[in-house]
């Protein structure tokens, strides 16, 4: 199945892109995906990674489904 990855702030710099589509096995969870992304992009390992699925913060073992948008970003700094 395909999911959409989004990157923000310094992660956009690390990955060189704002987003990409990725094919992942059925049953992939958020923590599985985080492992994949850490392997795909150098520099992810040393950083604190926050993530959200379809615009909501979710837990580590949430199952993903076709078409989900998963955003990866560093600790926020608005306000």
């Amino acid at each position: 199945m395909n999911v959409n990855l989004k990157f923000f702030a310094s992660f956009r710099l690390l990955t060189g892109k704002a987003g990409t589509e990725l094919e992942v096995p059925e049953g992939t969870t958020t923590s599985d995906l985080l492992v994949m992304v850490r392997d795909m992009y150098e520099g992810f390992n040393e950083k604190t990674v926050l993530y959200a699925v379809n615009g909501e913060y979710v837990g580590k073992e949430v199952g993903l489904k076709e078409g989900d948008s998963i955003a990866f970003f560093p600790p926020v700094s608005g306000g």
Partner: protein
Amino acid sequence: MIRVTREDFSVDEVIASIRSGGMGAIVTFLGTVRNKSKGRDVDRIEIQVYEEMAVKQLQAIREDAITRFGVEDVAIVHRYGSLGVSDNIMMIAVGAGHRPEAFEACRYVLETIKEKVPLWKKEFTPEGDYWIEGEEYERTE
């Protein structure tokens, strides 16, 4: 009222959007671009936002604050894009019957935004550009 925008805003207009007869106290926080950050001079900043998520988060924070502190209404406006020194970054307005809950709710909303809402500041200084991540800094180029 929740608004995420490139445009500047008027504090009076945002307050007008929540003002009602049940309010005796309206506490406002206005964040502005400071000319210094951790000892470095700041020329300007850029704010990046994950807009759909930020709007959802701000709506949830607003509703939570109203329930938790029993205040009358809360408005939040946050800008993104390129901002110069002294420019408005964001504002929170909390209207309540009395001052204690207005101050407490305003502070709570601000701290929760700084913890949860997907917005990031990049500071442009004579020494380089830095993404601000939580309370940490990273050199980006």
